[in-house]
């Protein structure tokens, strides 16, 4: 089809067929007012404020729905148009509380702006006005539906984008309203408190409680940062007034969350102002903590570490790092521990996510998530198994919904209905613990019906024939018995997945560190290899991590056997490279792991620990546990944190650190995207950014480090780490980048394994269904929307935040 030429306000423009008049006008920079239009929602052309005059058309047309036509002559601000808009505004204002003096929306209210633009001060239409009571029963926001203009944006966002389906239009005529079913309070509805309705409301009907009376829109400064909760790494604007965060909004244009958030990002930051924040260094004296100067605290840490080192040797020292700290902080942490002569440095990364990490390493040679979050919306089929992304990683569920809106097929296999079930074309309510059998049966059907990608298998994989004969026993009868899913559904699932040009798999087995998870990851890898759904856009395996910087902390070398970029300490050339840069010798002996320390009783050699923002007492055992006894038996324990935790309480020295909003630094999200967060406010009291504390301590310990800021730390790391080599703060300030990014010109890598797997060929594995009873009992980690992953750092944040209310009210 040929392009369309039209004239808008006497300027000619050429647009693609299907472009609306509104879109064409916006391309010309012409501002047509809109209320009910939102580019990511289905349009209904209901509010009429966007009407324009089209020559030879009988009536004014709604530009948001009217397609541009060839030869059209459009006027967006003619007298007729202005009169129509004035009439609409006058009608809206007739039933709108004009309390703009106190309304929180003043200054960014569309109704106010358009009334200003068209000179509407009040309304000549007398008559009834709505007198609805506020709904402020929930902990998060106030709904004043008297201000609602019924544009329906919030309904569309809640139903289409988020999928919560908490609100819809109710009733009709004058009493029409927007709200939950049966006039319930929002708190009693299916609302997930993502805040998208608040962020998209054009008027002041919805106001977050934290913003009430906390400053006008023009009084707050917005600083760009990254949400500190899950591994998606949503881009947020921190609203700052008087050195205090008073609000959060999603960054509209970015490849990660694109204007969307969940309850954690929207509401979960108020812990920053918690009275529990650590503000001065503390030293334990006669069983109680006393506040001391930084000099005294660091002096004591230095003396104690030196003593343990000279008495027991370097391997008596161990560092434990949280997966929440910045790349810079974690890089310096492992550098410090290794500079002390030991590789005893670890985080819970491998431990909590062992199934995903091990499975992906085995099959593909890289543990990182294969594809990007934004690509998910382009998938033609999505297979969700043993996951509830609406709970664990809401942005992933929003993208899956988007894929369905674009025509993609959704298969959901879960033992209980999940947040995406409502949308699924195929819902497979499988018996608990039978996921591997289901996936194997699908693979078998795909082979049986010749739906597999023979060329891909031959060219890019190995181990197919062994795999083929192994899954042959997973015929539909066998699988139906184990999974409870009938033959028709099994075949339909297999055909849908294999039939799509681009099919993606979502599973959160990575946050379920049970033994069954490992088998499932391999089975899913088989399925993707079998159908060639790897190494291309909108396909692959989405096994998102838990904590926000789990990827980055691993990349930085906070692992006992590898340095940054997964370079092995056993390799002489690697050690030589790092030794040259660090001006220190690096031990070739792999260090102790978290599991060895806390689960396998191999900790007797460790006499001193440095724990960074981590709470092993809460993660491993609680009050009267082996963990507490071990930590209590140490000669010396130093904990660096933002809060007094159960673990910090056992420390000899506590160092107060800055939280995410209080420092500059980078984080790497679960799709390997390196993102720069800026400092919005100063840390409380004498707290300092973690990287600066470590750098300072290194000086006390006799190492000559010199960093002007976190950017210098990043540059040093990038020089030593090929995946990050082309990334710098200058580049990140403009846009985030996904590693591998080997050079300054490289645009970053959206998806892995294109043309070649990290291990060469993709490896098929033989995985059998294992009866639940035969599985080793291991705890599965909590993965609820308001908390995340293990009850470690996230919990110490969320339990001091209003979002703690959400877990309670929803009973999740």
């Amino acid at each position: 089809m040929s392009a369309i030429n039209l004239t808008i306000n006497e300027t000619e423009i050429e647009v693609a067929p299907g472009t609306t008049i509104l879109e064409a006008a916006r391309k010309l920079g012409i501002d047509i007012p809109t209320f009910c239009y939102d580019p990511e929602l289905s349009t209904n052309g209901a509010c009429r404020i966007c009407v324009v005059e089209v020559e030879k058309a009988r009536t004014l047309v709604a530009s948001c729905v009217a397609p541009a036509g060839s030869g059209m002559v459009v006027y967006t601000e003619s007298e007729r148009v202005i009169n129509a808009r004035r009439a609409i505004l006058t009608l809206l204002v007739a039933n709108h509380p004009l309390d703009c003096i106190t309304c929180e929306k003043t200054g960014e209210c569309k109704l106010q702006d358009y009334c200003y633009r068209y000179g509407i001060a009040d309304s000549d239409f007398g008559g009834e006005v709505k007198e609805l009571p506020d709904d402020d029963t929930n902990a998060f926001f106030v709904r004043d539906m008297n201000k609602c203009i019924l544009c329906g944006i919030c309904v569309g966002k809640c139903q289409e984008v988020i999928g919560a389906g908490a609100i819809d239009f109710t009733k009709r005529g004058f009493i029409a309203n927007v709200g939950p079913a049966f006039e319930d309070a929002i708190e009693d509805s299916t609302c997930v408190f993502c805040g998208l309705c608040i962020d998209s409301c054009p008027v002041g009907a919805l106001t977050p409680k934290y913003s009430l009376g906390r400053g006008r829109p023009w009084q707050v400064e917005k600083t760009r940062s990254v949400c500190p909760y899950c591994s998606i790494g949503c881009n947020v604007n921190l609203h700052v007034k008087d050195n205090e965060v008073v609000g959060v909004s999603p960054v509209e244009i970015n490849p990660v969350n694109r204007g969307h958030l969940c309850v954690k990002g929207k509401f979960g930051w108020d812990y920053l102002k918690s009275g529990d924040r650590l503000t001065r260094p503390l030293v334990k004296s006669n069983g109680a903590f006393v506040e001391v100067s930084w000099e005294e605290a660091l002096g004591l840490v230095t003396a104690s570490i030196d003593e343990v080192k000279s008495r027991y040797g370097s391997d008596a020292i161990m560092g434990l790092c949280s997966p929440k700290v910045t790349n810079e902080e974690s890089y310096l942490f492992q550098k410090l521990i290794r500079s002390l002569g030991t590789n005893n440095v670890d985080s819970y990364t491998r431990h909590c996510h062992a199934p995903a990490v091990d499975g992906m390493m085995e099959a593909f040679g890289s543990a990182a998530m294969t594809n990007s979050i934004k690509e998910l919306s382009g998938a033609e089929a999505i297979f969700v198994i043993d996951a509830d992304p609406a709970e664990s990683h809401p942005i992933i569920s929003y993208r899956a919904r988007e894929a369905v809106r674009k025509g993609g097929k959704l298969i959901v296999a879960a033992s209980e209905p999940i947040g995406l079930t409502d949308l699924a074309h195929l819902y497979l309510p499988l018996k608990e613990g039978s996921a591997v059998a289901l996936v194997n049966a699908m693979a078998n059907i795909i082979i049986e019906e010749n739906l597999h990608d023979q060329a891909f298998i031959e060219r890019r994989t190995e181990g197919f024939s062994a795999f083929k004969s192994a899954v042959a026993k997973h015929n539909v009868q066998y699988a139906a018995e184990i999974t409870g899913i009938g033959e028709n559904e099994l075949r339909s699932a297999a055909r849908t997945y294999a039939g799509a040009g681009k099919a993606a798999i979502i599973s959160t087995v990575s946050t379920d560190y049970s033994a069954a998870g490992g088998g499932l990851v391999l089975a899913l890898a088989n399925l993707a290899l079998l159908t060639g759904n790897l190494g291309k856009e909108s396909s692959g395996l989405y096994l998102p991590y838990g904590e926000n910087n789990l990827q980055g902390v691993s990349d930085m070398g906070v692992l006992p056997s590898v340095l940054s970029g997964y370079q092995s300490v056993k390799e002489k050339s690697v050690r030589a490279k790092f030794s040259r840069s660090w001006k220190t010798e690096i031990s070739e002996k792999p260090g102790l792991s978290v599991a060895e320390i806390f689960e396998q009783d191999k900790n007797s050699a460790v006499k001193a620990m440095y724990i960074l923002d981590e709470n092993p007492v809460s993660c491993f055992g609680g009050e009267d546990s082996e963990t507490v006894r071990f930590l209590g038996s140490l000669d010396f324990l130093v904990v660096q944190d933002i809060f007094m935790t159960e673990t910090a309480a056992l420390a000899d020295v506590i160092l107060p650190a800055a939280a995410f909003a209080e420092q500059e630094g980078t984080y790497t999200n679960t799709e390997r995207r390196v993102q720069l967060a800026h400092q919005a406010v100063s840390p409380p009291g004498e707290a300092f950014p973690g990287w600066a504390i470590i750098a300072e301590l290194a000086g006390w310990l006799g190492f000559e480090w010199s960093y002007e800021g976190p950017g210098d730390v990043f540059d040093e790391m990038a020089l030593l780490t090929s995946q990050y080599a082309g990334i710098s703060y200058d580049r990140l300030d403009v846009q985030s980048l996904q590693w591998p990014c080997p050079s300054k010109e490289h645009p970053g890598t959206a998806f892995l394994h294109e043309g070649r797997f990290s291990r060469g060929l993709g490896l098929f594995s033989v995985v059998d269904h294992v009866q639940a009873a035969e599985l080793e009992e291991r705890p599965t980690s909590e993965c609820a929307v308001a908390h995340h992953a293990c009850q470690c750092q996230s919990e110490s944040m969320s339990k001091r935040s209003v979002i703690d209310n959400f877990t309670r009210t929803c009973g999740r």
Partner: protein
Amino acid sequence: MSIAIETEEAVTEEIDLSKVDALIEPYIGKKEMIIPALQKVQDHFGYLPRSAVEQVSKRMRTPLSRLYGVATFYAQFKMKPRGRYIIRVCKGTACHIQGSPKIAERIEDILGLESGETTDDLRFTLEEVACIGACALAPVIMINDDPHGRLTPDKIKDILDSYQ
């Protein structure tokens, strides 16, 4: 003024959700069919009990808010229990001239309710309709499917008494 049954327990007890499943079975997986599904449920219960709508929501995988939105948009759907007998008082022009306001007033007096309400014993529900197309019988009412025409207020009591 009568208040329609509000005792949740009493209402809940009557709701046999297995019946709901059977009623909406033909519409499962067809989200565009929520109106016929709600009609079936209403045909069965006489109105849309909350627990039944919740069951429809679950089975049809459609948000409760959407079902409620649809149900409260259309006048045909009733959210409260209705009487065994639905009295429709014609408020068309011919009936109005022939005295329908007085007819309505008398019914309201006898039953103690206003238009749109239901008696406590669930015997009658009173509604006003625009025109039932029987102007020759004005003023006219219908009780379920029976028309009663050429009414005077004094005839009302006997007519109502005949519906037990």
